[in-house]
């Protein structure tokens, strides 16, 4: 008993206190979402009443286009994930497996560019897209396709870099053998590399999806119309803007929006964490 006390007790104490710290906000959001009075308060540890008012409000109040927000976020994030990985994988393959002039300087440039935080160039992106808007209103400032383009550009640096790391770890013997048999780089890419890399591509696509889902500031600058907003911007407007301090529906909305992300994250944590340690800090 005494030995157990000294060797294991402190471990449990540390773990339990941090677990409480981790759970506190989450618990609070959950009980607030069932609390019809609408503040992020802690009147008692157990909810006095359970009501689904906040949840039903999200889907019934015409002033809250929650479903369109969700749809916008999912479509944009999915499009960014799929397109950026498709484009990024090809580039990563070239950087990892092909020999060409200027490869080293290309990689260095990529690295350097990646260090320019996207938010810093935001005023330039804004001005550029404002100009695009003037001649192509469909893809400029204030449109979802425009936002998608900007996201794709921003995702490129990180994704190519991340994917190159993964591609490097796939043994080169297979494609060398194929090369000996007379396969062209295109064939090696489609018939050998892509099937091998699919799990890895899926993970990077997922990281990209979560990152885009979480993106706030570009979405806020770009999408002005209430129904065009993404979920992050929309939910923020609950508590910041005209609804001021509407915590009940906010809590309900965040829970619905977070559950899929949390489930994806937890079920694929092993792969995701490998990706994160390979070169990025989740935003």
């Amino acid at each position, binding site marked *: 008993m005494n030995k157990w006390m000294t060797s*294991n007790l402190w*471990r449990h104490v540390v*773990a339990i206190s*941090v*677990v409480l*710290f*981790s759970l506190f*906000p*989450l618990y609070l*959001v959950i009980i607030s979402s069932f609390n019809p009075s609408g*503040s*992020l*308060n*802690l009147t008692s540890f157990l909810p006095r009443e359970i009501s689904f008012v906040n949840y039903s409000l999200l889907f019934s109040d015409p002033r809250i286009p929650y479903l369109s927000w969700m749809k916008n976020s999912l479509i944009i994030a999915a499009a960014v994930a799929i397109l950026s990985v498709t*484009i990024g994988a090809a*580039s990563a393959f070239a*950087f990892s497996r*092909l020999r060409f002039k200027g490869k080293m300087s290309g990689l260095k440039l990529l690295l*350097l560019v990646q*260090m*320019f*935080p996207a*938010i*810093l*160039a*935001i*005023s*330039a992106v804004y001005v*550029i897209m404002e*100009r*695009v808007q003037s*001649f192509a209103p469909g893809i400029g400032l204030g449109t979802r396709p425009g936002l998608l*383009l900007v996201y*794709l*550009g921003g995702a*490129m*640096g990180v994704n190519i870099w991340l994917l190159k790391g993964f591609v490097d770890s796939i043994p080169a013997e297979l494609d060398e053998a194929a090369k000996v048999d007379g396969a062209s*780089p295109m*064939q090696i890419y*489609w*018939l050998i590399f892509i099937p091998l890399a699919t799990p890895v591509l899926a993970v990077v696509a997922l990281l990209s999806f979560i990152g885009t889902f979480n993106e*706030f*500031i570009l979405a806020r600058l770009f999408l002005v119309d209430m129904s065009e907003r993404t979920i*992050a911007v929309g*939910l*923020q407007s609950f*508590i910041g803007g005209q609804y001021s*301090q509407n*915590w009940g529906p*906010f809590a309900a909305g965040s829970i619905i929006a*977070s559950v899929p*992300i*949390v489930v994806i*994250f*937890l079920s694929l944590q092993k792969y995701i*964490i490998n990706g994160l*340690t390979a070169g990025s*800090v*989740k*935003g």
Partner: protein
Amino acid sequence: MLISIFRGKFAFALKVITLLILTSILVMLAQQALASSEYAIAIFLAISIVMINFVYLTKRSVPLKFFLPGLLFLLAFVIGPILYTLVMSGFTYQTGNTLSKADAITQVQKLGVVQDSNQTIFDVTIGKNGSNELSLLYFDSLTNEFAISTEKARTAEPESTVVKDEFDIPSSSPNFSALTEDELGALDAQIPALKFYYSDEYYLGLEGFQAASLYKKSLQFNQARDEFKSLINNDIYRDNGRGNFANINNPEDILQPGWRSPIWFENYTKLFSEERLRTPFIKVFLWTISFAGLSVLTTFALGLLLAIALNKAIRGRRFYRSILILPYAMPSVMSILIWGGMFDTEFGAINNLFGTDIAWFQNAAFARTAVIVVNLWLGFPYFYLVASGALQAIPAELSEAAAIDGATPRQIFNKITLPLLLKILSPLLIASFAFNFNNFNLIYLLTGGGPIAQLDGEIAGSTDILISYTYKIAFNQGNSNLGLASAISVLIFLLVASISMYGLKKSKVLDDFV
């Protein structure tokens, strides 16, 4: 079988069709860009079109076939904006100086008018004259006659032929018919730009649909000498080299609007030479460093503590682990907003829990504490995960050997485990520092940078980090300064890049190229 999809006629046809569609879309865009004189964008599109067709229709470069799409996106939305930021940082690019010089001159001329000294206003009717020109019919109270003014001329109308409406306002005459409501509606947007001749000196400008005032030009532009001359007091206004025409006798007296004018490094030097900018900049800079440093320190310390505590197969370890990464799995935007609500003074759970009554976001020290606490919650799982991984990677033989030599567990930790961990994790620590250095979302969503000292014009708050401060400068309503914001952006980039480069050198990532 499969190979035939990637070779053969089908694949070729597919490639040509895709290229055709893409090319035609891009050509259309380039044409539109050219039409609205966005030359840089048009040139970029043209180069893209040539490159795409060249690369995919010839066999000159196989690698380019793979990375051209990525390259184009990178050029358009990352490298382009970075270069543009660099360019903007060399200009006066701010509220009042957003136009090109030619546009600014046109605007100054348009605005360079004054009303006559009596501020005369005529009741007018808008219509068309006999030759179908847009014109005004009105009673001229200065000369006591009815008159019709077009853009170029004014003719008097005999009183007997003028028809008046129930308000005694002239509404038509043989030489004049009023516009219909619909026609007026269509004209609405042009109203401020319309001018009607009154005399050589004065013209009539509309104030809505039913009234017009007498204006005269107050500024004369001299193209050859590139200067404005005041027609009122003969003052000369010249290009002051900073994007404005300024009175040569009084540099403070400038004409609005100005234009984007190159000032080279002034945006940079201004940050250090002007007291008004330097003080908040240094304050924000110091807090940014402390914030990033403290964030890394706290998240790493808690993560490491957990990793050590759970490095042994104790009961419930899996359960603990799955709970501990929850904060990391949650979308961070939402977590930050939730924490913002919890720190609310009146209704927030934090004050509630501790029975306190602290106005967290009104006081600099409390707001900073809140920021660090929230970031700790967001960030410790990352270091818990990576430190756990790193602990596994340290060979057990090392500590066993030390234990045999009689080292205490504390000595083993301090002398062996920790130094090795730091060595393994240092690139991640540096990356985390660089990330927090620019942790815009946290600051923007939690405190908005506040609290802000109530000085006039001051926009830097106590929790503002460089990036949120820059954002405020760039998008401050009514007083945005893109030039200055760009200069700060470039400085932040240089800083973060050198920190990251140092980190990468340490981690030897660069050696792994090839």
